[in-house]
């Protein structure tokens, strides 16, 4: 590492450690613990951002030398840190989101004063940031795995922070089990590599795939996809994500959704692009297919939610799917030898990674502020918050427009890049697999449109119209630090949206390292104003241009206003209610109602069931009480996980017979095996 950036990196890590220590030290004085803990976390985040931006901006000048952080007592186990371009990019993601969330938490944790131990939360928060940064800059297998496990452990601690209600505890347990599953798969995968590489350092792993036999490489790839897939939350392995993220405190679920699932993406990119050597075609195709399925199913399930944070959690699955589409396409282009297209698809995937980190964290912080004000996650009890929480509403709207991939914000730019790579992908091969690209594009469009529908519902039902409960009626605006936290992320979204060409320069060293091409010049036109595809006349887009044009064309309606309607007055009146007495909040459209048409259209997937119990005294037509219940079948849970679960239980019940309960029986088992082994040894 260059001299100055090495110091900056170690300084960042030490700031986090200081944050942890400070938070624990001042546990008793909650206010102080909050200030010290999250203040230092914010400082750490800021340093992390400066470090990563400076080292990425340095580009080729960045020397990558592994640094031994600590060589433990056990010989052969050294904790090595090595920040190359890819690591710096992900450190930028974790630091930027960490900075914003820390500032947000300064205000948010005040609800926990007197109720929960804020010092512990701040300490674990710092630890989480520290450990996640270590995962990204891990130089060898030991560092990576230990940081990976610590991250899962700390995240578990935070998921079950409010362990009073059973739902949180169950979510925590499920999260823990799935984290260990993915840790196991990742470990096995790395062992396959280590066995070939001899050593455990990532440097020795680079390009090791070439020396592995094809079967071994495929096994390693499947193990890594499963391991990192669980952490990233791709569809068949996603069941823990919508359960764990909503129960965590909002700032933590923002960190988890924004950053922790990105460790899965980091792992996949590091392994597929660097370690496993030239990929066969089916790797990329499977990633693209899984990504498409995750994207579509993620958004479809999100549409059916009326719990705000579960909705956002499902959207994480959708966006991870989109990132995977970019990565899958890039792997396919690597196989067919189109390196330039591969780097374009990789840039699309990485750009969407940081985009998703920013706007998902922003939305979760918004949801946190709303939860903080209305004490409920259920959208059916909210409404009319736009007038009571003006700034939160504005920030949430920016997040919603960004996540729905609408111009001129960052979601649109990364999806535009993904479309470009999918479009040019069609011409790269002649085999039938090239049909996946346009179909992938169509499904991406479906995802984008459904995401827009979902966020019209989320924003509309939560912030607009009349408040549906007295919680929502007397909601109050979030405190200043919370708004600043959201403001930082909003600014990041707007910057990443309007100035993509500036940010693409930072991605150059990564694509140079992974696919050997620098694309920022090729993608930039008209000195930075316009972003273009790789093909000559391949089509360009300029979000900044669109904003400027909005400015230029605004005078048209204003002129019409001035010419025609100068004398027109505006009168505030009750909403038109067909002459009834008055519009009550119950007459408004609900979240369930909003998604009803889509539930009917996709009922094969959701299998909705509704029960109406009607009690009446004398005539069935005059019901005294009416109870309506509607359920949707959790298809993955009931079709895959539950049968596997019951199978395991049945098997273990059969094994219980071995547990005879008498000491002698157990000793006999041991003795018999001992003797058998000795006989075998003869």
């Amino acid at each position, binding site marked *: 590492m260059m001299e100055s950036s090495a110091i900056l990196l170690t300084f960042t890590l030490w700031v986090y450690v200081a944050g942890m220590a400070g938070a624990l030290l001042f546990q008793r004085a909650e206010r102080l613990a909050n200030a010290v803990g999250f203040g230092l976390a914010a400082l750490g985040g800021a340093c992390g951002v400066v470090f990563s931006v400076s080292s990425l901006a340095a580009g080729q000048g960045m020397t990558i030398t592994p640094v031994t952080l600590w060589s433990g007592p056990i010989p052969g186990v050294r904790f090595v840190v090595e920040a190359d371009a890819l690591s710096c990019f992900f450190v930028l993601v974790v630091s930027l989101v960490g900075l914003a969330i820390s500032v947000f938490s300064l205000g948010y944790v005040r609800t926990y004063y007197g109720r929960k131990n804020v010092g512990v939360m701040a300490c674990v928060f710092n630890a989480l940031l520290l450990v996640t940064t270590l995962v990204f800059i891990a130089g060898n297998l030991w560092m990576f795995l230990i940081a990976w496990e610590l991250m899962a452990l700390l995240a578990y601690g935070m998921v079950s922070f409010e362990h009073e209600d059973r739902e949180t505890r169950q979510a925590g347990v499920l999260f823990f089990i799935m984290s260990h599953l993915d840790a196991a798969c990742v470990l096995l995968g790395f062992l396959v590599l280590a066995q070939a590489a001899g050593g455990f350092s990532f440097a020795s792993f680079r390009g090791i795939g070439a020396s592995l036999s094809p079967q071994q490489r495929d096994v390693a790839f499947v193990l890594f996809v499963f391991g990192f897939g669980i952490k990233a939350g791709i569809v068949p392995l996603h069941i823990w994500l919508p359960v764990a993220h909503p129960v965590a405190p909002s700032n933590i679920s923002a960190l988890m959704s924004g950053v922790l699932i990105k460790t899965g993406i980091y792992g996949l990119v590091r392994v597929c692009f660097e370690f496993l050597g030239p990929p066969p075609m089916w790797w990329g195709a499977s990633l693209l297919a899984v990504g498409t399925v995750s994207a579509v199913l993620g958004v479809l399930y999100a549409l059916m939610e009326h719990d705000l944070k579960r909705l956002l959690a499902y959207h994480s699955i959708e966006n991870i799917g989109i990132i995977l589409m970019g990565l899958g396409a890039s792997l396919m282009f690597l196989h067919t030898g189109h390196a330039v297209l591969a780097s374009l698809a990789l840039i699309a995937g990485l750009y969407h990674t940081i985009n998703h980190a920013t706007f998902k964290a922003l939305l979760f912080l918004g949801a946190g502020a709303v939860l903080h004000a209305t004490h409920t996650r259920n959208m059916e009890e909210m409404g009319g918050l736009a007038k009571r929480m003006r700034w939160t509403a504005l920030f949430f709207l920016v997040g919603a427009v960004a996540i729905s991939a609408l111009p001129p914000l960052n979601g649109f730019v990364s999806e535009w890049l993904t479309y470009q790579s999918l479009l040019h992908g069609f011409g790269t091969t002649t085999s039938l697999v090239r049909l996946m690209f346009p179909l992938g594009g169509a499904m991406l469009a479906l995802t984008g449109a459904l995401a827009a529908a979902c966020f019209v519902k989320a924003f509309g039902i939560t912030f607009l119209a009349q408040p549906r409960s007295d919680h929502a009626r007397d909601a109050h605006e979030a405190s200043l630090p919370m708004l600043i936290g959201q403001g930082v992320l909003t600014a990041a979204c707007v910057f990443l949206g309007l100035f993509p060409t500036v940010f693409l320069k930072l991605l150059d060293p990564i694509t140079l390292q992974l696919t050997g091409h620098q694309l920022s010049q090729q993608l930039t036109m008209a000195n930075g104003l316009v972003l273009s595809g790789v093909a000559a006349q391949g089509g360009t887009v300029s979000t900044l241009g669109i904003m400027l044009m909005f400015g230029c064309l605004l005078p048209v309606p204003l002129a019409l206003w001035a010419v025609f309607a100068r004398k027109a007055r505006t009168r505030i009146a009750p909403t*038109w209610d067909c002459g009834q007495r008055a519009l009550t909040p119950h007459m408004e459209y609900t979240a369930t109602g909003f998604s009803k048409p889509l539930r009917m259209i996709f009922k094969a997937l959701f299998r909705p069931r509704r029960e109406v119990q009607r009690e009446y005294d004398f005539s069935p037509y005059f019901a005294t009480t009416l109870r309506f219940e509607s359920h949707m079948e959790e298809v993955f849970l009931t079709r895959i996980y539950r049968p596997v679960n019951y199978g395991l239980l049945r098997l273990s019940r059969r094994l219980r017979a071995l547990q005879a309960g008498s000491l002698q029986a157990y000793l006999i088992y041991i003795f018999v095996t001992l003797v058998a082994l000795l006989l075998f040894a003869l």
Partner: protein
Amino acid sequence: MFVQDTLLNRLKRGCETMAYPKGAAPALPDRHGGALRVDAARCDAKCGACVTVCPTEAIARPAGKPVALDLGRCIFCAECVTVCPTKAITRTGDHRMAVRRREDLVLGDASKEQVRLAQALDEKLRRLFGRSLRLRQVSAAGCNACEADTNVLGTIGWDLGRFGIQFVASPRHADGLLITGPVSKNMELALKKTYAAVPDPKIVIAVGACAIAGGPFIGHPQHHNGTSALLPVDLYIPGCPPHPLTILDGLLRLLGRLDEPTGIR
């Protein structure tokens, strides 16, 4: 198959909208008889046969005037025409009856044998609504006769759309209300709210005897005897129900789309 047959049929039939107001107005049905005309001179002061025979007491003998026929309350049953010995009240067969002011409907004075037809809107409103008028129809407890006749204007024969007049669903899009029915107590709130929901400048048109003065239900405790009790009315179209031609004539006259001179004939 279906598409060709429809198209061919439609093209063969061509345009079936009447030429009015460019061409001649369609003839009124014989039973209709058109507007009434009152010759106070021929009325025999002592007779009073018409006063008793009128079902809605539209005819009164105020002091100082031989007879006063209030067309707003008249349901055009023409009983008074048959029973009047001296033919003081006669039918004119003329469909034009819409007026701007309530008192114009009262006939019987020396100079007012017949209705003083409606003037067009003032210059500002005419410039605004002249080419594009959207009305919100409110049936305030009407018997659906006036509503049906107003609805007929939308059919291909009358085709109200060609004048830029349109009925809309939401009062927010409307420029005025077209009210039918005697405005019952139940509909009072709804009517007021609808009126409040229409953005200014707005006009109110009362169609039919009920909307003008309560029609056959006049004086009933559950009614407000027409819209004038609640809202400022810009155009009255008498009749029970008024012939579609009368309504159309009233609307066009209001918007100044008829080129013939208005005023007393």
